[in-house]
């Protein structure tokens, strides 16, 4: 066991920091800081992702043969920590983190050639068609139907909670191709061009209050949408295997670096918050709360180190990803709650769309606008990607064997 990094690793860290300094421009930071749900706008994300892509860093987990950077475990860790520390925009995960590993594992050579390079270079943005109005935690009960015709599937139904569907060029969908057998057995994994006639994207306003066009999620409707047969990934009716494989990537992310940053941001805001003849960051109760959260983040960090150091590049985490998802999201929520408490009365003012810039000075501290909305927005984290109740069921079954 050894916690130190080699000279090469430290040189890599310097390189990553320099990249962030250059690419995460003040203008991009300012726009990012106005977001109430974490996404900037499409142009902002594309700008950032193209900068990453230019260094070959967009998809740190991809194997080298597909254009991944071939990071060592240490480099991967340093990369995540530095990105988390700087609070850079998150890479929109639906392409590089979700559909790409599925295409690599189950796709045809033609599919790999057609889709992977555009994902790696952010020429094409993806969104995820999993949940439906009647199918959330019980994903296998999904009803969106794909009927096989001569040279295409005919897709009818709807997907919900589809993040950034309004920006996406493509959507990967779980669709029902058969009603025979168990629900899991009739599902297929389809890639659908969002420009296909019959697709309609309707914005949904969530608790952060951000309306269209800057909404986070949508409902996507499919009416007689024709999808070429060659857009099927893997075998027909075997899409559940792809779906499960993808979910392990969806949940297997490191959280701790971002959590440290979020907590330090609350501390910085507390240092600007007067209380009596001092400031809130010196208040013993606040300090104890922050210390409690920080030690929980440290436990998270070392759990992540243990898990990720055991993995080779391109591997995925397995059922332990459920542990990361539960603890990571619960800590995100706890930190956002502390931020609300630290802010005090200036949680009251509400700005409907933070992405619309105005010349009006803010009401209260400049950072106040996003604090309460972000707290409400982050309630999603224990619901999405398999609710934390479902994650605990997975751990009970797959880890504890109950």
């Amino acid at each position, binding site marked *: 066991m050894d916690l130190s990094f080699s000279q090469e690793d430290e040189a890599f860290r310097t390189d990553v920091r320099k990249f962030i300094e250059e690419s995460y421009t003040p203008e991009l930071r300012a726009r990012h800081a106005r977001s109430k749900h974490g996404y900037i706008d499409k142009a902002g994300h594309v700008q950032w992702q193209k900068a990453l892509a230019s260094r070959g860093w967009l998809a740190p987990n991809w194997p080298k043969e597909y254009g991944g950077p071939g990071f060592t475990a240490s480099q991967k860790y340093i990369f995540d920590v530095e990105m988390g520390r700087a609070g850079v925009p998150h890479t929109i995960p639906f392409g590089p983190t979700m559909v790409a590993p599925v295409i690599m594992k189950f796709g045809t050579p033609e599919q790999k050639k057609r889709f992977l390079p555009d994902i790696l270079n952010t020429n094409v943005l993806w969104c995820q068609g999993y949940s439906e109005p009647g199918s*959330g935690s019980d994903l296998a009960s999904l009803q969106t139907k794909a009927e096989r015709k001569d040279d295409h599937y005919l897709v009818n139904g709807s997907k919900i909670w589809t993040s950034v569907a309004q920006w996406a060029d493509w959507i990967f969908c779980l669709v029902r191709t058969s009603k025979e057998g168990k629900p899991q057995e009739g599902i297929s994994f389809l890639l659908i061009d969002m420009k296909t006639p019959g697709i309609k994207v309707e914005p949904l306003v969530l608790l952060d209050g951000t309306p269209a066009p800057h909404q986070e999620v949508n409902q996507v409707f499919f009416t007689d949408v024709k999808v070429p047969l060659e857009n099927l990934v893997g075998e027909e009716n075997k899409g559940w295997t792809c779906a499960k494989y993808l979910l392990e990537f969806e949940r297997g992310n490191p959280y701790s670096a971002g959590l440290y940053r979020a907590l330090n941001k609350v501390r910085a805001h507390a240092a600007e918050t007067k209380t009596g003849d001092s400031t809130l960051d010196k208040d013993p109760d606040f300090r104890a709360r922050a210390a409690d959260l920080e030690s929980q983040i440290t436990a998270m960090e070392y759990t992540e180190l243990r898990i990720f150091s055991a993995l080779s590049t391109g591997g995925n985490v397995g059922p332990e990803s459920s542990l990361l998802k539960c603890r990571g999201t619960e800590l995100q929520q706890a930190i956002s709650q502390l931020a609300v408490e630290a802010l005090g009365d200036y*949680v009251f003012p509400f700005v409907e769309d933070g992405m619309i810039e105005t010349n009006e000075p803010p009401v209260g501290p400049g950072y106040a606008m996003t604090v309460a909305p972000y707290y409400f927005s982050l309630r999603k984290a224990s619901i999405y990607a398999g609710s934390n109740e479902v994650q605990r069921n997975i751990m009970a079954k797959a880890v504890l064997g109950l």
Partner: protein
Amino acid sequence: MDFSFSEEQTLLRNMVQSFLSDKYDFETRRKIVKSADGWSPANWGQFAELGLLAAPFPEELGGLGGGAIETMLIMEQFGRHLVVEPFVETVVLAGGLLREAGSPAQQEAHIPGIIAGETVWAFAYAEPQGRYNLADLVTTAKKDGEGYVLNGYKAVVLGAPWAGKLIVSARTSGGQRDKDGVSLFIVDKSAAGVSTRDYPTTDGRRASEVTLENVKVGADALLGGEGKALPVIEKVTDEAIAALAAEATGCMDELNKATVEYCKTRKQFGQPIGKFQVLQHRMVDMFMAYEQSVSMSYMVSLKLGESDSERVKAAAGTKVQIGKAGRFVGQQAVQLHGGMGMTDELNVGHYFKRLTMIDTQFGNVDHQLKRYSEAA
């Protein structure tokens, strides 16, 4: 010992309940919130007609002779419907300050207008640096002939965009956080030197930042003894805490009912999700949190007239209970509603937001724990 309500109190509650059921469903409220003014003066007129604005005032002041229990019953119903109109600001806070500190002439001049629904009031007590400390005041009032001149900045004055009159706390003597030297002034919002910046709030109401620049008021604007206002402010804000506690119980009960109903009907894995034991226990915890909050709401409403230290403990303890319970019930109601709970369309998130703002108002859990420990 008797925890039952009198016949009059039961009638009052039923009347509010039936009025709001008819006139204040969630879609109507949404329209009110989105309207240009953000409240319904017509509803306010109806509240006056129904006697709600008179209910907690003593008869000798033209009221119906009720008190904290009447306020509690009204506010609980207001919580169920997320009423945005400024009952706490006008009746509980301004009305309470006038009742406690007003001269007979001031009471005669202002209380009838409140009861008739003619004038809306807002209480400008908070300042950006104050952090829940009611005595932490930079705003000053300097003697000027017979009257005073006010200068300063008041933060997050809830209901101010709708108000004609403000009650402003200002320092007439002493240092920034001294307990002595705090005074209250009645200020016309239209007075020269008063400027406001209005904005919507997270929970669908309206508030203002209020700047006072050489605002001249007469001697009759001083409410209560010069420099002696802090105990009155503390007493009346504790009454407002009791009102908010009742409102919070209304919010929580509606969330719990909606959550149980949803879990009975929402099917996943071939059965209603309410059949899962982990969710059953969660909903039982929500129920217990609500019941404990109702108990504290009753307790504080019964103890508002006791000694200062007893009253402070009652109010602070209640605020801690509703703060913690409100967070838990609000968060879990969203969680159990899943993605639907995250939408602006469903009322669940709106109750959660209101509960979050109630936790903040007059000091959150951490603040009230300190206050309790200092009073005990």
